[in-house]
């Protein structure tokens, strides 16, 4: 397949964006980038993102939403799903109420992502986004080209609540996404929606750079308005002699230990914690111990195991209806995350959100390992489920579920990831464990304790 052209990658790139991209690619302290990526934002997709932003600003999405009722748009969304989307249509007659619709889950989406695409949706602006999330087995999420850019108005909304303006603009690096992993895709790109500002994604693993001190030099020189990442990447960021203070840090994907938040706020400034999943996009932003839902067309509820909606403040599983992805029509989609929903006045909020903890492991040589690296190491085995536990002594215990399990290869992958001196025991999950909520990553190496003891 021929490599995509610049206009394929950046339909709206202009000379300012081109110049900035070249500067970031050729920067003397830049990392050894591993990828090339564009925003894919066509003029028509740009218009849809602007409409989304306007919708956000008017508050139309939450009209009618109360303890007793779903938002006004839900009824037409449900009718649309049962009329146009194969997965729902083949269930038969549309139930009278949303609460009577059976939930869906990741396995439904894994099995046939095409069944969630409305019949009327043209396919020419389809992108395929692959994520492992917390599960290990990659999930193909079909997406429109505008979906990534739709994160930006949401980010702006969340930042504005903290008095921070994401300006963007020519010549500026708007967002630096930092990771701390063995390997990940790294690149500079231009967000044409932010008026030709750049986004960079870098890996703080020193082996990804020509010189270890290039990490701080490059980030200082880029002067990103926002630094985005996860708690483990931010802990690594804290170790670098960076003098630049961004306007805010944006953390997602794992629970942020309070001690880390305090230190990051003291060193860098405001820290925003966002709850977001690939299938649904950004869902909520942490605010005074609760999670404020973004004012978008995404109905959030919590459900019992038998699909009944939970009551006000009752613990259940977070489920989503709606969303901004024209290729993925969500109706009561179970996220796998626990929580409770209540209202602060007229504002729906999530409480007791049970997100993935920031689990770290210890390699045979004593160095610490991000749980994401273990997920990536297991990805090629297409396991249905896995659970990894490391004891304080360093021994690894794996439980796995799947159709074809090559224990020998899995053991090799773990030894390659952790180092040769680690003991690895592998067991199959019982049927009960496979169907239940066994956490993917657990470790007696406490990230919180490492931070408290100054060992990170």
């Amino acid at each position: 397949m021929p490599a995509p052209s610049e206009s394929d990658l950046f339909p709206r790139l202009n000379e300012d964006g081109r110049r900035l991209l070249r500067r970031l690619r050729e920067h003397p302290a830049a990392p050894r980038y591993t990828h090339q990526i564009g925003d894919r934002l066509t003029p028509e997709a740009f218009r849809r993102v602007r409409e989304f932003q306007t919708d956000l600003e008017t508050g139309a999405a939450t009209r009618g939403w109360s303890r007793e009722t779903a938002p006004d748009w839900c009824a037409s969304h449900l009718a649309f799903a049962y009329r146009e989307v194969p997965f729902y249509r083949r269930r038969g007659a549309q139930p009278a109420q949303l609460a009577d619709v059976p939930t869906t889950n990741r396995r439904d989406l894994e099995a046939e992502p095409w069944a969630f695409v409305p019949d009327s949706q043209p396919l020419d602006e389809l992108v395929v986004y692959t994520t492992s999330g917390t599960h290990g087995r990659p999930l193909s999420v079909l997406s429109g080209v505008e979906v990534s850019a739709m994160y930006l108005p949401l980010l702006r909304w969340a930042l504005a609540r903290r008095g921070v303006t994401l300006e963007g603009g020519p010549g500026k690096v708007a967002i630096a996404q930092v990771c701390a992993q063995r390997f990940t895709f790294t690149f500079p790109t231009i967000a044409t929606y932010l008026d030709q500002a750049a986004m960079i994604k870098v890996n703080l693993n020193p082996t990804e750079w020509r010189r270890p001190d290039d990490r701080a030099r490059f980030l200082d020189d880029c002067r990103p308005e926002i630094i985005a990442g996860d708690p483990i990447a931010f802990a690594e960021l804290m170790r670098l002699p960076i003098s630049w203070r961004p306007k805010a840090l944006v953390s997602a994907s794992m629970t942020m230990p309070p001690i880390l938040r305090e230190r990051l706020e003291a060193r860098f400034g405001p820290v925003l914690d966002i709850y977001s999943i690939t299938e649904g996009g950004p869902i909520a932003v942490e605010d005074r111990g609760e999670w404020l839902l973004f004012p978008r067309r995404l109905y959030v509820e919590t459900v019992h195991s038998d699909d009944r909606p939970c009551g006000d403040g009752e613990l259940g599983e977070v489920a989503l209806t709606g969303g901004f992805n024209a290729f993925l029509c969500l109706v009561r989609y179970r996220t796998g995350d626990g929580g409770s929903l209540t209202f602060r006045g007229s504002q729906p909020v999530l409480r007791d959100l049970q997100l993935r903890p920031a689990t770290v492991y210890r390699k045979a040589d004593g160095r610490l390992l991000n749980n994401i690296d273990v997920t990536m190491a297991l990805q090629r085995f297409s396991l249905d489920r896995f659970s990894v536990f490391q004891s304080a002594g360093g021994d690894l215990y794996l439980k796995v579920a799947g159709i074809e399990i090559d224990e020998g290869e899995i053991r090799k992958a773990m030894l390659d990831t952790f180092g040769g001196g680690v003991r690895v025991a592998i067991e199959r999950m019982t049927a009960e464990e496979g169907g239940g909520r066994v956490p993917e990553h657990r470790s007696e190496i406490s990230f919180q304790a490492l931070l408290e003891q100054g060992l990170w």
Partner: protein
Amino acid sequence: MNVEGPSFEPLNRRLSECPAEFLAEPRIGRRGLIHVDAVVADLLRDLGGVQRVVDLRPFRTDDPKDRNRLSATLVAAWLLHDDAFIGGRFGEAVLGFLVADIPELAQVVPAPQLVTDVDRREELIRLALKALGLRPAGESAAQAQDRLTTVSTVERRRVVAAARAAEERARAIREAMAKKAEEEVAARYMRE
């Protein structure tokens, strides 16, 4: 078929007792007895629910090829002029049924069989109820759809065509996925 409607048997009996006038020659050009457009107009008035001026031209024709369609329309009009539907504001749904579904049925079933044949009577009744968003009393939506698919050649053709269309669409999406999977996707602006 979200709403439970009338019982099947009384409708079946009514249809089997269709008066001879409704099986008489429909008016086509200058020939025939029964002005089908007038019968439909009366039916819609008595059903209620039609707030506009209705175009009855589909029921007025010079083309002899329309004979079976018009005869089937008369039989359906007899069926639907039942107390179960009168005053129920089904006018728009019935009009849609007569304009869209009856022509399809008339392509495969001679109109008299809609009265004389047990399975064809059931087919007409179930198609009509479905068009009105109703299911026979005592049946679930799934049972009603299942039975309709069993007795109705028209419904079976639709189900097969819909299944074929769905599979073609799924194949088109899978092909697009395979093509697009090699392309660079757009970056996400935060971790997830």
